[in-house]
């Protein structure tokens, strides 16, 4: 019974991923609501706190994520054209971009930590309320987003090996498609996080 195989249903799997994406958007939606309430409560302090973020690093990461999204989309086209080799390479590029993104994030967060800015730190607790809330939201939102990057990365690694083994091919590529959908979501959320956190100065 455990091995009960049902016919595979690519449309159904895609629908499932879309619904899951709705839930992710709502998850971040809750954060965006808190962000907007707090920003309207402390507009000047949010403005001031945002100047401490490195907009160039943020912009670099935005470009990297957009490039990774493009790569995974091209990978999907490649597999539909039965070019597994190219599809695999493009997924590798996506994975590389994701890693670079995380490395950048590491340095960005590291610099903040170096100045004693991390959740729960003494420096943070001495900040005024608006600053504290901004940095808390910054760490919370980018942290949760980074977690999603890691999840997406894991999916893409699995996808890569399945392309290599031929399990994902011209006829059955729904896993790649779902991985790409998820990756676009991670990208999309960043597209909103970037201006809300880095560009409001």
């Amino acid at each position, binding site marked *: 019974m*455990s091995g009960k195989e049902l016919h595979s249903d690519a449309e159904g799997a895609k629908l499932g991923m879309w619904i899951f994406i*709705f839930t992710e958007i709502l*998850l971040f939606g809750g954060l965006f609501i808190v962000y907007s309430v707090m920003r309207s409560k402390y507009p000047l302090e949010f403005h001031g706190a945002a100047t401490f973020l490195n907009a160039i690093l943020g912009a670099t990461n935005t470009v990297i994520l957009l490039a990774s999204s493009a790569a995974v989309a091209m990978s999907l086209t490649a597999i539909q054209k039965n070019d597994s080799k190219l599809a695999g390479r493009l997924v590798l590029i996506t994975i590389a971009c994701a890693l670079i993104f995380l490395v950048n994030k590491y340095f960005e967060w590291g610099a903040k930590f170096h100045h004693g800015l991390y959740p729960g730190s003494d420096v943070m607790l001495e900040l005024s309320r608006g600053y504290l809330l901004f940095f808390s939201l910054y760490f919370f939102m980018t942290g949760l987003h980074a977690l999603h990057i890691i999840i997406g990365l894991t999916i893409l690694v699995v996808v890569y090996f399945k392309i290599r083994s031929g399990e994902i091919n011209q006829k059955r590529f729904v896993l790649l498609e779902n991985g790409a959908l998820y990756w676009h979501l991670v990208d999309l959320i960043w597209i909103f996080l970037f201006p809300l956190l880095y560009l409001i100065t």
Partner: protein
Amino acid sequence: MEQKYVSYLENTGKWKGIMAWLTSTDHKRIALMYLFSIMVFFIVGGLLGEVMRTELFEPGQQFISAKTYNALFTVHGIIMIFMVVIPGLSAIFGNFFLPIMIGAKDVAFPRLNLFSWYIFMAGSLIAVYSLAARNGPPDTGWTFYAPYSTQSSSNVIPAITAAFVLGFSSILTGLNFIVTIHRMRAPGMTWFKMPLFPWSVYATAWIQVLATPIIGITLLMLIAERIFKIGFFDPALGGDPILYQHLFWTYSHPAVYIMILPAMGVITEIIPTFCQKKIFGYKAIALSSLAIAFVGYFVWGHHMFTSGMSNTAQWFFSFLTFIVAVPSAIKVFNWVATMYKGSISLTPPFLYALAFIFLFMIGGLTGLSLGALATNIYVHDTSYVVAHFHYIIFGGMGFAFFAAIHYWYPKMFGRMYNFRVANIAWLINFIGFNLLYFPQFVIGMEGMPRRYFDYLPQFTAGHQVSTIGGYILGVGLFIMIYNLFKGRKGPIAPANPWKGKTLEWQIPSPPPVENFEEIPVITHGPYDYE
């Protein structure tokens, strides 16, 4: 029916005994795993309720402290809400009968389905841990209102984590059901030839998917706030406690419809079967489920009329609360109209369905008096609210659950329970339930606050009747569960003991592993009795 097939209860895989269940992706086995785990949680939650009622038998402290009482109603709430009523009908009966009723061999993602059960159990274990761990059980109430939940020294974080994990399980179950209904209906089963229980599960699944993430992120923020002293919600830190309430109820009001919609679906299946009559107003019932799911999103503010809200917002939420009562009333009228001139047989499932309509109407109409702005202020945070809520959730969802288990028992286990004992248990339950909760309306209007372990002497009579009702209900539930338990050795049930028309009654009892030898082709509606 002679056993010419392999039923899902027999082992066919490589595993034996308990492992054959724990590794099974069969939706029917997963449903039973939910059934047994939820049954245990229900008994635990019920016993906690009995302890509270015993404490309240007389004014003053009887045998537990005020703090313990706080922990009791919190834990009672967490168990009953997150571990019993939210998963209850859809995870048990939805899992078991949704695929069969739409003519499918399983849900769309069987492995994800099993995974959801494991997440559910993981969440439940964390909840149990929060009771037992060092700092004492959570005492915030199941709503985890800030700022108290950010300050209480009890095990709030494990309890919140449990709620978060259980929510994740709920999301995945909902996702699975939506895809199942979209993709796996048998040939010929158009949307409007689908039975109404799947319809209600469908509406429920959308709420599960679209509302649960909000509570997920809110609870995560609460955890972050407790660990890092952030101040999202704590006014002492510059946060906004009302914002917490908004976010909490944005999920938790739709969650009430996660509880009641599948219950309405069950009743809609039972009534035509035991009246041997086509359901009245099929489309109205189907669409009213979606209407409830939709409008139910926009009424959460009625939990917060006294918390501080603009007059416009109050008016808006109150108005929508009245609107959401309309589709519920449509269903009640349709059920009653179905019974008119039907050939009714008063079997245990039908009796429970009747009790459901009666109790749900009391719960629903008192809900309107709570949704009206003026009366809300008057009875806010009194036991009137407790009574209303229990009439809806226990009298509604709970009795629908009992109706469902009595209705589908012969199909699930292939055996029949004792009718006489079931009828007696039903009567005791019905009497006990009303004695337990109705006095709480009365003392609530007289000013008895909710969540108090002590009270003024003038409320004594009401509390005593209520406590006695609680004991009677406990006895009734014990008899009912015992009777169902004994039923596993009862007489063999025929495939279609109630002469039902929906697909689950057209296959043998208990169902074969693959449900259908051949996927049926649907040519007529689900309730064509004439």
